[in-house]
């Protein structure tokens, strides 16, 4: 079975869980006065879950009889030729950035993310890189914090500045 049909199967399961919640879990919490309404918070999700499961199953059984489709020239069958490790490490870097943005502050976490990302992709001129990312980190913080007026903790929390 092709990747798209596997994915459609997973989506069908998610829609089934969504539908179960809409049909059997949500209405019990509804105040009695709202139960007189012709429309409940669960009405629209109930309709969506039914149509969604049908649409997912029509992809699973390949109702349209679509041939093999490859998304945007990249074929999952050739995954060995792609730089999967680099991509996974950069995804990890993004997660790490999300987790450290508050505790390490904007400047340090951004500097680390940009420098680490570039090194990971093969940049070897470390001094130049560090200089550019340091200027960029401070410049962007200044722009967002001062010009746009959106507060962002610049320094690590433990420094208590």
């Amino acid at each position, binding site marked *: 079975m092709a*990747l798209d049909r596997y*994915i459609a199967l997973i989506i069908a399961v998610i829609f089934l869980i969504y539908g179960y919640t809409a049909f059997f879990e949500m209405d019990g919490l509804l105040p009695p006065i709202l139960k007189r309404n*012709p*429309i409940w918070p669960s009405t629209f999700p109930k309709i969506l879950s039914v149509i969604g499961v049908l649409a997912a199953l029509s992809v699973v059984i390949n109702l349209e009889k679509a041939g093999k489709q490859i998304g945007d020239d990249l074929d999952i069958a050739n995954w060995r030729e792609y730089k999967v490790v680099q991509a996974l490490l950069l995804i990890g870097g993004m997660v790490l950035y999300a*987790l450290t943005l*508050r505790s390490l502050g904007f400047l340090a976490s951004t500097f680390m993310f940009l420098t680490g990302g*570039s090194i990971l*992709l093969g940049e070897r001129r470390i001094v130049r890189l560090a200089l550019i990312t340091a200027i960029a980190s401070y410049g*962007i913080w200044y722009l967002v914090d001062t010009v746009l007026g959106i507060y962002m903790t610049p320094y690590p929390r433990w420094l208590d500045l």
Partner: protein
Amino acid sequence: MLEGFLIGLETALSIKNLLMVIGGCIIGTFIGMLPGLGPMSIIAIMIPVAISIGDPSAAIILLAGVYYGAVFGGSTSSILINAPGVASTVATSFDGYPMTRQGKAGKALTIAAIASFAGGTIGAILLVLFAPALASVALLFHSSEYFALMVVGLSAIAAFAGTGQITKAVLMTIAGLVLATIGEGAQFNMPRFTMGIMDLQSGIGFITLAMAMFAIPETLFLILDPNRSGKPDEKQSEITNLRITKDEAKQITPVIARQSLQGFLIGVMPGAGATIASFLGYAVERNLASPEEREQFGKGSVKGLAAPESANNAACTGSFVPLLTLGIPGSGTTAILLGALIALNVSPGPRLMEDQPEIFWSVILSMYFGNLVLLILNLPLIPYIAKVLTVPRTFLIPFILFFTLMGAYIGQNNATELLFLVGLGVTATILRFAAFPLAPLLIGFILGPMLEDNFSRATQLYDGIGFMWERPMTTALLLIAISLIVLPAWRSRRAAVSLKKG
């Protein structure tokens, strides 16, 4: 109408708004040229900046400028390095890149700029004529017709997804509608499907979803396949002669006129958009050309370059018609603009022209100014802006990812949002590997609350779903919606079956 037009003209011509158009066009061109960032990602990144401006007219003018700049930037990278940033500029590279290889990069860029300018300008004039008429008709609509109209819009978007893709597009639209039900909606005042996660109470941020659907997969694709970004050709440095001859101007004039009109009409249809307009424009002009000229198509024909460029810009303008008059976005980009308008407390729809004429008209007029800026300011700057193509990917990719993260963070001011972004971005990348179209998901997500709101209102008015068959207009629209999905899907199935047999 004239009064509103003049108010809009005054707003669009204010120094602040002119600076917004110029700034937007330059930023858009600059970023649009980078591989991996199409107009949708750029607008999504710019939305927090636009919202922080506070003035809805200025904000939307900035975003419209960014949109035009990005489309132009995409054409430039198509012509110079054969790396179209977006699908709508793929047809531009058919003849634009061969011209660059012949050392005519400057000429190709000029033709692209003139064709874009003419396409966008003719589109803007048609928009001025069409939009008010459509808006006055739409004022007669009730919530049930609105609901049905949105269903038609969503079905059309799925129907135009291409052969073998319709059921997938329907599935993605429903996934978008499902995602939109997460969180506490204004209508019921109770959290739904939050799974006890506090950060989901306010739902998923639309900027987060837009970044996750477009910017992250494209950047991850650039990491996975380093050849994807294209390399600047040595001839690229020869952008010196930007002039075109009289004969060339004579050749492209009728092409531009035809394709501007055709592109606009295609752009007005929900789901069709700039990509279909550009490919169709190219094909039509190729068929209309004389046998000798046809031979030149694909080898550096000026007609082959002017056709998709004018068509895609006119279509971009055309796609604003359903957005401004009905509040229904016809493409991913206009869906993002709709999200931005809602965040700015502006409700696009037929009432916009009457209630906030300064926004309605200034957006339309700034499109015209945007095109003018692209022609007189961006074109001479192109040789300098094109230097951005030489930035090494080792720098470029972490910065693109960082701006994506920042866009989501500033939009919601919440670090957990970044984790949602990464999770949704990885999911979107897997979906793209399996050729699931992602624009319908985002359009479904943005239209979801409005669709449910109109459905609820109609249900309450009719004490049930009787409105679906009791109001003839609603019934007709819903039947159109069903046929839009069923007929092409059935046809593609029959074609596939007969192909197998034959």
